[in-house]
């Protein structure tokens, strides 16, 4: 081909890359700001119950969901806001759900730990640790039987490694060569206990024992997560079977919004280290600047838009109405 076309090829490629990574940045920022608003709602006593913030782990959900199609499936956890947003849920209906309003994704019946959205393939957050490993694997079984080319991603924290059902379904997924990717978000803590006190041997070994392709990735590096996820997802989509991805990451806040005093289980220094040295948004932002994909103004612009979007979403949720009493007995049976 002529140098001219190759030039346009190249510039088209660069433009695509630039858009892709700016989008990843925007998604991470949106999650960060969403969680700041959740914490705000909690401290202002506007949100019933508790919520588990995803701040610090954004690169995992975004890096992976950017590798998925809209009709691919995910299952999420009690710490699920990031997964929902990354898969395409809209913040207004999410906030409405967090406040128990009728406009919420679950008509107010699910709350923070149960957001589900068929439109984006979100089979639901789950308040049972490891509770969705079977659901994700079953979705992969459907995909294989219907031959619709979909993939299911099962998000869970390293604490779910304690649940035996995970091993039961990984064995089946490998026997049946199902298109499912198990994503273990290792943020170092099961609630208030360091994972090293609850996890013997190795994490990858748990999947490798079943012959499952198992890899580990820096969960603070959105590009690394995306590259690895793309490979494993495509592999599953191609019928080559399940995979397991350990993403090493960290949660900035407490186990839930009410977990304020944390020194008895982890040090302020440790938290500070992750926030200042390993922040996924900062790291990716610096890279964008280095690549000249963006200048500081652009990044601020993205943050500003996110703030506006989330504030509007909160306003929508706060003003939305509660379900009518009669709705309490609806949706028990289909």
């Amino acid at each position: 081909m002529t140098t001219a076309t190759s030039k346009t090829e190249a510039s088209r490629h660069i433009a695509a890359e630039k858009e892709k990574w700016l989008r990843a940045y925007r998604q991470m920022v949106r999650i960060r700001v969403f969680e700041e608003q959740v914490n705000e709602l909690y401290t202002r006593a506007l949100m019933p119950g508790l919520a588990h913030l995803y701040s610090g782990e954004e690169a995992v959900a975004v890096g992976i969901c950017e590798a998925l199609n809209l009709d691919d499936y995910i299952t999420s956890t009690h710490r699920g806001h990031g997964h929902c947003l990354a898969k395409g849920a809209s913040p207004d209906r999410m906030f409405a759900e967090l406040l128990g309003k009728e406009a919420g994704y679950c008509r107010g019946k699910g709350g923070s730990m149960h957001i589900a959205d068929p439109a984006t393939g979100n089979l639901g957050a789950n308040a049972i640790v490891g509770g969705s490993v079977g659901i994700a694997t079953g979705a992969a079984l459907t995909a294989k039987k219907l031959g619709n080319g979909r993939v299911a991603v099962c998000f869970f924290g390293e604490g779910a490694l304690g649940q035996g059902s995970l091993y039961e379904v990984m064995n089946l997924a490998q026997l049946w060569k199902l298109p499912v990717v198990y994503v273990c978000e290792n943020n170092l803590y099961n609630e208030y206990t360091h994972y090293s006190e609850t996890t013997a041997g190795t994490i990858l070994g748990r999947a490798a024992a079943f012959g499952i392709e198992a890899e580990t990735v820096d969960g603070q590096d959105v590009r690394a997560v995306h590259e690895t996820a793309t490979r494993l997802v495509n592999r599953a989509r191609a019928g080559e079977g399940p995979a397991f991805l350990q993403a090493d990451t960290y949660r900035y806040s407490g186990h839930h919004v009410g977990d304020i005093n944390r020194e008895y289980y982890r040090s302020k220094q440790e938290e500070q280290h992750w926030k200042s040295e390993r922040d996924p948004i900062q790291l990716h932002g610096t890279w964008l600047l280095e690549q000249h994909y963006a200048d500081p103004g652009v990044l601020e612009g993205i943050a500003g838009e996110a703030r506006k979007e989330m504030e509007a979403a909160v306003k929508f949720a706060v003003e939305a109405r509660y379900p009518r009493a009669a709705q309490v007995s609806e949706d028990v049976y289909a």
Partner: protein
Amino acid sequence: MPERELTFAQAVREALAEEMRRDERVCIFGEDVAEAGTPFKVLSGLVEEFGRERVLDTPISEAGFTGIGVGAAMTGLRPVIDIMFGDFLTLTMDQMVNQAAKAHYMSGGHWKVPMVLRTTLGATRRSAAQHSQSLQAWFSHVPGLKIVLPSTPYDAKGLLKSAIRDENPVVFFEDKMMYKLKGPVPEDDYTIPFGVADVKREGDDISFVATSSMVQVALGAALLLEKEGISAEVVDPRTTWPLDEETIIESVKKTSRVIVMDEGYGRYGVAAELAAVIAEGAFYDLDAPVKRMGAMHVPIPFSPPLEDLTVPTEQAVCEAARHLCGKS
């Protein structure tokens, strides 16, 4: 021409085969369900007709494959899951109760879980405490589930077809001692709605409200009592949830005396619910307290002479009936 007769096991198999022909999304999985056709041989022949793509042998992972069933049902399949012995339901509780039963409600009606969990109940098979339980009460206690307890081959076919077509998670209990019981079963495609009790026998002096295996015991007792001039009506709720309170209460209002029977433990069991419903609904018509009969409140023992003491028998029912009718 004479009605066609099938065994209970054949009726179950026919319902599955017909539904699998009708709907490609219906698939079966469980332990030894394919070539082995389960230890009870209930599924024999299905893998030959539908292949291993739709009749899947699993590892011994009740929690795991039940959970997979939930996800498969949510996304477009209609799995029929086989739990060999009802005693192993203990391993499926989280997936059935925290996931299957609640997914529809928690998602505000957005996700559905059209799955069927087939399992067994019943003692006297000399299988001891971990292979003889009748745990239908646990599931009946959980909103979001439907619970089916067929008592005849005819009901088994019609109810199972309804279960497979239902949009909700259904737990289907088969009495393992009843698999060889024969009864008329039409060849045609019929379904039996949930929440509709069946009066298996009409009578005037006393009502027997019985489920599953106990329906046969109740019918046997009714025959014996007939000779003594006691006319017993046998009402089979067929589903404990939804529950047809009206038919049950109507019967008791007519007879004014009732024995409720379920092979699960009576204490905190199905019999307790039936007794409570009747005591409230027929309060002004009862001549005597509702009599509850269920498994003796002990783990099921292996030794035959002991095991036989733990399950209500026709004789025990007759005795209780005579007593209630003031004929003893």
